[in-house]
């Protein structure tokens, strides 16, 4: 209990400060939770899909083969909860805020100075989002998110170091951090010792008069710094981690895992943000040591200085004037003005009001700066709209909700390549590909492209146009989402299971066999092609992942059901071997029905049936014959090579749609007309063909017969097509031939005037411009 009034006031004030600080931290936590859990929720989900955590001894040991492995293992454990982005965001925010609180406690900064302790968390938040453009590239996802945990552990180490008074013990413990932690935390073991070293260096700076203490602090600082440098080298000499390149011994994580060009805007932000967080902590610890002044002392001592006195006088005068104005106002308004006590404020009251006003101003400043800081995080972690739509679509793809996919995709005016790929699939699965294939731009970037004119001016030395081009190049670079991980599943859904398996296997290798999405694609691919034992391998691994257990068990149950082998045929070159393999397969199902299989793996019949329907749908899209390719993959944007032209006659109608749309996209007039005209006569003798077909047909007729005669046929075009096509023809007439116009402009005009028609129009090759 405080003994005096003054003590009570001080305690209250501390409490108030404490409350303000806690509130700021709480606000920061809520902001981070929103930032990760909501704004980047779909991204977090994608991260966990490209990661893997198994409760397995071997799995842990494989992580421990590299420095920072233990940290990544712990982070991988956290990442699995990103399956529920709100939970994942909560965990990330909690760990980051805990780090901030610990840093604030260790540095003892109060008031606005305390804001500096939020900086590492802010930079961490920024650094986690910049690699988001590469979420579809397989790499070690844990590395990115491990910083929050690492900072917390390092600060705990530092707190432990400071808890010891004896220099000898301190030195021993400080060196112990790097010795014990480097094999598990890598760079962060070095960092923990570096924090101790910088603290001792600060002590040496402060202890100017006490030479013994200063020398001792310098010795300890040097010992700690040397151990932070030499111990990692020793660890590598001891050959525990022969995989670490010499240049990477002091690197954060194994940053070569992040596979993109370091000379890009993304890399600048990412590397900048990720390196700044530990640097700021080092600086704060050093500042705290060399300036051991708390705000209260600062204010007390500060009042005595001339500068503050002048400031104080100004404030005092302002308070007195303000109070006088207020009193006067009250007096004017109050009826019994005579009774009102218009007493001038005493010096104590002015002092008290002065303090209160300063506190309020300080608090306001803290909150304003905190808001600025949060705004900075949001702005610095800029991502294009198409990025957010892409990750949202990827997440929706998991649930195979095709209608929802089309709805989400339609909200983005400039869809990315990945979005178009998913949209094409959704259109096909909803039976709307022939109707809506060309309704929306086929692929693009959010950034509005600079024109040829801009390029020309920039080349001639115009600074403005140079800046414009540079900006465009930088922005475009950030928007190029790779679809490497995503496309494996898409190929699978398109029936290209061998290609899907190839890409998924390469992705699995690149992610060091830690990718749920690749394992799942491999499982689906193996299930589709009837590879029972292989599918079992992947499903068994997935059944150990808590959030995918049900799906994997349903898959395992499906393998035992009789319909697993329906529609599977072996394509071995030797027909006898193929027949033998088919016979072996038919003997394998061990359950008589889906229900029985489901019971065996404790999953519902519905879940097994859902997987069965997915596999059956994929099987219906598989190629009709086996063929070989040396390299290259079918194009999922323009639907090339998903179905070979020579399979047209052998394919079901739904598959023929892919070929016809593909022929429109690649402007193969002869194939389209040869195969579409019979369909037209048979299925749409009086008009009413799907829009893409009709418009494509119109454009080819326009090319063959010109503007006057293109409609001279039995087929009745809809008024909409005629109207759009007339607009198109007007545009062509106006610009006197497409070849005379800049290709970007043509693209834009075609999208505006005639939507799908341009894909069928072969007037100029530049019209067809794949991104």
């Amino acid at each position, binding site marked *: 209990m405080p003994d005096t009034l003054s003590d009570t006031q001080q305690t209250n004030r501390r409490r108030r400060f404490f409350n303000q600080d806690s509130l700021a931290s709480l606000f920061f936590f809520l902001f981070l939770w929103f930032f990760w859990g909501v704004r980047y929720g779909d991204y977090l989900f994608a991260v966990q899909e490209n990661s893997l955590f198994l409760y397995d001894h071997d799995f842990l040991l494989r992580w421990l083969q590299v420095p920072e492995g233990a940290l990544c293992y712990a982070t991988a454990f956290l990442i699995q909860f990103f399956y529920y982005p709100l939970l994942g965001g909560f965990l990330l925010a909690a760990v980051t805020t805990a780090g901030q609180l610990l840093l604030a406690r260790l540095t003892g900064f109060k008031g606005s100075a305390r804001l500096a302790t939020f900086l590492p968390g802010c930079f961490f938040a920024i650094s986690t989002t910049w690699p988001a453009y590469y979420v579809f590239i397989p790499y070690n996802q844990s590395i990115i998110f491990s910083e929050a945990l690492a900072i917390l552990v390092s600060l705990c180490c530092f707190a432990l170091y400071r808890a010891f008074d004896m220099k000898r013990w301190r030195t021993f413990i400080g060196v112990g951090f790097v010795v014990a932690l480097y094999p598990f935390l890598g760079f962060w073991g070095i960092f923990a010792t570096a924090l101790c070293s910088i603290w001792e260096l600060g002590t040496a700076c402060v202890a100017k008069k006490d030479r013994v203490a200063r020398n001792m602090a310098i010795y300890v600082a040097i010992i700690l710094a040397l151990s932070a440098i030499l111990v990692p080298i020793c660890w590598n000499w001891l050959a525990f981690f022969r995989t670490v390149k010499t240049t990477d011994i002091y690197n954060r994580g194994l940053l070569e895992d992040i596979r993109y060009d370091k000379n890009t805007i993304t890399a600048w932000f990412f590397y900048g943000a990720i390196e700044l967080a530990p640097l700021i902590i080092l600086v704060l610890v050093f500042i705290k040591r060399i300036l051991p002044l708390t705000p209260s002392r600062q204010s007390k001592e500060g009042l005595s200085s001339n500068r503050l006195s002048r400031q104080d006088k100004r404030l005092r005068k302002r308070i007195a004037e303000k109070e006088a104005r207020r009193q006067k106002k009250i007096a004017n308004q109050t009826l019994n003005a005579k009774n009102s006590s218009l007493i001038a404020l005493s010096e104590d009251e002015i002092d008290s009001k002065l303090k209160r006003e300063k506190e309020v101003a300080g608090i306001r400043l803290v909150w304003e700066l905190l808001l600025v800081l949060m705004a900075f995080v949001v702005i610095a972690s800029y991502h294009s709209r198409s990025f957010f739509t892409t990750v949202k679509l990827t997440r929706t793809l998991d649930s195979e909700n095709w209608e929802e996919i089309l709805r989400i995709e339609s909200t983005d005016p400039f869809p990315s390549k990945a979005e178009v790929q998913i949209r094409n699939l959704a259109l096909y699965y909803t039976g709307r590909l022939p109707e809506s294939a060309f309704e929306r731009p086929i692929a693009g970037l959010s950034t509005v492209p600079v024109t040829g004119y801009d390029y020309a001016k920039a080349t001639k030395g115009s600074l403005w146009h140079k800046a414009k081009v540079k900006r465009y190049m930088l922005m475009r670079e950030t928007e190029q989402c790779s679809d490497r991980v995503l496309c494996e599943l898409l190929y699978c859904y398109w029936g290209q299971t061998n290609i899907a398996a190839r890409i998924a296997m390469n992705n699995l290798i690149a992610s060091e066999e830690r990718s749920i999405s690749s394992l799942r694609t491999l499982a689906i691919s193996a299930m589709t092609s009837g590879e029972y034992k292989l599918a079992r391998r992947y499903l068994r691994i997935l059944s150990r992942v808590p959030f995918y257990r049900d799906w994997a068990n349903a898959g395992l149950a499906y393998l035992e059901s009789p319909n697993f082998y329906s529609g599977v045929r072996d*394509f071995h070159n030797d027909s006898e071997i193929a027949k033998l393999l088919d016979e072996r397969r038919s003997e394998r199902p061990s359950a008589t029905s889906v229900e029985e299989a489901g019971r065996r793996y404790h999953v519902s019949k519905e879940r097994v049936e859902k997987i069965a329907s997915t596999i059956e749908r994929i099987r219906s899209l598989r190629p009709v014959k086996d063929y070989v390719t040396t390299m290259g993959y079918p194009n999922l944007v323009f639907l090339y090579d998903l179905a070979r032209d020579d399979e047209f006659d052998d394919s079901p109608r739904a598959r023929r749609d892919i070929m016809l749309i593909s022929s429109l996209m690649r402007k193969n007039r002869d194939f389209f007309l040869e195969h579409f005209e019979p369909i037209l006569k048979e299925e749409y003798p009086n008009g009413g063909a799907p829009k893409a077909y009709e418009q494509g047909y119109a454009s080819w007729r326009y090319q063959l017969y010109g503007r006057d005669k293109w409609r001279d046929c039995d087929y009745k075009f809809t008024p909409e097509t005629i109207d759009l096509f007339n607009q198109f023809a007007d545009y062509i007439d106006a610009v006197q031939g497409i070849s005379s116009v800049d290709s970007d402009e043509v693209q834009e005009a075609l999208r505006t005037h005639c939507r799908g028609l341009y894909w069928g129009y072969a007037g100029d090759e530049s019209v067809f411009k794949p991104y």
Partner: protein
Amino acid sequence: MTKIESIQFAFVVSAVVATSLLVGCSRNVPSAYDETDVLPAIYPDYVETTFPPNIAPANFMIEEDAEAYIVKLSGSDGSTICVSGQKAIFPEKKWRKLLEANRGGKFSVEVYVKIDGKWLKRRKYENSISDDSADPYLAYRLIEPGYDYGHRIVLAQRCVENFDERVFFDNRSVGTSPCVNCHSFQDRKTERFLFHFRRMDNQSMGGTIIVEGKSAKKVGGNVDANGITCSYPAWRPTGDFVAFSSNYTRQFFHSLSSQKIEVFDAFSDLVLLDSAKNELTMVTQTKDEFEVFPHWSPDGSTLYYCSAHFSPKTPQSTDSERLEEMVKHATELRYSVYKMTFDESSRTFGSPEIVVDAAGQERSALFPRISPDGKFLVYTLSESGVFPIWRPEADLYIKNLETGEERAWKEVNSEDSDSYHSWSSTGRWIVFSSRREDGQYTRLYMSHVDAEGYASKPFMLPQKDPEHGRLFLKSYNVPEIMVEAIKIDPRVLLETAKKPAEPTRNL
């Protein structure tokens, strides 16, 4: 602690120990159970097989849903090992004692499972313990069955007597994950061995690392201006010579077949390297004959190899046209086994003689390996091609070189690819790689071979965690048996890999 307290403490401790022992014993062998005539479902399949007396514990897991599991091993000498749990992990010392005590005999395996509170005893089975020890070490490459560069590839050594596995080369230590392949030991000893090291980012830094005792050197190994490098190696059992095939390997992919990839050679020839002088001599240089997979007879007097014939329809076609044609006809390439005598003094080879005419039977014979006594030839037979590892129909065949009798080695074959194989120094054990698990991931199997060339039921190389074979997502590639551990320090290999290659002289 007072005296009374000490006595109390000792009493409590002994009571706890005695109770735990009693509980342990009673748990090990259920007193009441129902016998069933069903063999236990275990993984890996170690039922009724033959083990070498020096093999690591053959741990397995019981693939049944049960409340409790007990496994009891009993040797004919009366020794027993009892373990509980779904994963039967046998203590190494006890296992070794059991095998030693019953060498040349058998041990029985009893599996008890507790289902619905009731103990069931599965059908008892016996495993044999051979008199012949296996060579203690194996070298192999661990690699994912991928289709691209950039893998993490390690060369590892495994002691088959325990679970000790040591990596002696890791490709990620050098550059951007170069390819590491084709390790070969001279006469199963580790004094001299080699492996290739190829860097995609800097081809000039690639080469063949040749180990001599505790030192190593890197040799360039370029054969001609096309940059075709030495590929599949074979150390002559004595001397400095290494035979290589020089291959221009290409691949293509199937759209539907479960065999997803086809690998073929567009050119291949045989070359001979004098490892002491870094001198290369072309052994064969024929455009239409593709020689590959050299292998020396145990005395080093004969070189066995495989060869296929391909003649393009238009003989004057360019290399790219030829390659295009080969892609179309790659599945028609079929290899037979040939041999040539070798004269060391003149470095000359005799005329080729056919040993296995597989091409004549429209099949492809690959990886010829002669047993140390020179009596048997084991090879892999597939429908066509040069890469049987991706071919599910690939099987091992054995030919008695004395009688000329050859047959499919049905005892060891499976319905998936059985391919690369290596004889032990005694010729009584063979290790081979097989994809019988799932057609994709290669695992190693060992089998005992008797004097007549009959093999015992193969067993998967034991692992500490019996589930390892299912969860491990890498393939065991190119198993080579060794009689001793690798002596060279892995760091020397690493440093050698980083150095520029020594040039070779083409004779």
